[in-house]
């Protein structure tokens, strides 16, 4: 009887340590990261607000599609203007494509006229791996209660073509529009598309 109980306990322990990937509907894991201005941010400090996490690599053609078109900047401006907290997250390891120093990121934000709340520098990939961020871009949305309500692609046209943006369904805007209106998110997950995140390994 006792052996069965220990067995169960041991299995739960092993399983919980391997099942790190958060699922939509669950509590979004808290993280701490420093932005390109040297300021520290903790997800828990933003309880009560919608938070968008945007995984980013300025050299990836899929990221470039959304930046050269102005699409990402437009989304950042629209939603931060409505009180949403928007974090651009860069998990590229030093020496890998997309890695930037704080100064380089600030220069990029200025040149691109991007306006996230902050750009979080995650070169060790801690935040990326906590969320299982796979691609750039990969979008996550956390609601004011701290639950993950969206995890996936920015839109439904998984290409590098800027011309696909206008006719694409933007999953981020759709989820935020629905959630802010108190409705359930109709498309909570989708396959994120883009280049693989260049993690340290």
């Amino acid at each position, binding site marked *: 009887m006792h052996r069965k109980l220990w067995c169960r306990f041991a299995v739960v322990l092993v399983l919980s340590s391997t099942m790190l990937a958060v*699922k939509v509907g669950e509590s979004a894991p808290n993280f701490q990261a420093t932005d390109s201005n040297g300021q520290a941010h903790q997800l828990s400090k933003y309880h009560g607000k919608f938070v968008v996490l945007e995984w980013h690599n300025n050299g990836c053609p899929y990221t470039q599609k959304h930046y050269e078109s102005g699409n990402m900047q437009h989304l950042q401006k629209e939603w931060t203007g409505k009180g949403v907290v928007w974090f651009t997250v860069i998990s590229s390891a030093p020496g890998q494509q997309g890695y930037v120093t704080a100064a380089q990121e600030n220069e990029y934000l200025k040149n691109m006229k991007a306006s996230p709340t902050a750009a979080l520098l995650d070169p060790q990939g801690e935040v990326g791996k906590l969320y299982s961020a796979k691609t750039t871009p990969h979008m996550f949305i956390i609601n004011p209660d701290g639950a993950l309500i969206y995890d996936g692609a920015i839109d439904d046209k998984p290409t*590098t073509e800027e011309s696909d943006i206008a006719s694409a369904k933007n999953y981020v805007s759709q989820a935020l529009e629905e959630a802010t209106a108190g409705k359930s998110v109709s498309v909570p997950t989708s396959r994120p598309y883009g280049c693989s995140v260049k993690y340290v390994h």
Partner: protein
Amino acid sequence: MLHRFVYGFLLVALLGMPWPVIAVWQGPADQHAKLALVSEQDALVAGKTLWLGIQFDLQDGWHTYWSNPGDSGEAPRIEWQLPPGFQADEIHWPYPERLPVPPFMDYGYAHEVLLPVSLTVPSNLKDVDSMRLAARVNYLVCREVCIPGKKQVELSLPVRKDSGPSAAREQFEATRRRLPKPVPHDWKVSAASAGGEFVLTVKAGHSLEAPQFFPLEEEQIENAAPQEAKRISGGVRLHLKKSKHLTKPPTRLRGVVVTGVDKAYLVDVAVSQSRPEGSM
């Protein structure tokens, strides 16, 4: 002021030059992948189906993607430019290899691959010396970084009463062996949903080498998770970790099971609900 005149003059001069009718798009992707449109036979025969293929010759270290690219990447797409009456069907995908992108996993091809397509040739072919078949291929090649490519490929073939094999025939035959086959009649394949995984049971009447499962649907299994294979009498049982993106339990499991070189089988089975094996 003079420089404006010079630039203007150059622009006009360039526009006036006799560019080739078919512009070949030379982008950076071209440095890492050579693409060509090839056919299995050396001529078009009225009313006779012909196999065409897009040939990718990839530089060492570079790869391109399968129909389900996995956790990142993008499958190649073909936009055909064919004479009236001709029709090309979908790509027949050879089985891929696993392409690790730690901590994730993609599916695709390294070195070289031929993507065959069946071409319907009309029975009322014009009596011409040759016909031009062309396509624009949108693709992605990656190594540590990814480069999107757009390649215009074309092939001119004569119209004849009979055709013989082309130089690419052997490559078509080798590729055919890599296409997933239907499961043999005497095999029994079943799938069950068991907690956090799918259990795929393949009974072949003989032992099977540790198989690899390549999912045809995106977001059903965790692509990077090891696929634990357990030997059972007359077959094998594969444990496939479910994707965290699964919001609704799928009713079918579709994929390619590879049990050895040129031994790929198309699996498409209903998923039954069952208690996890060995539950305590």
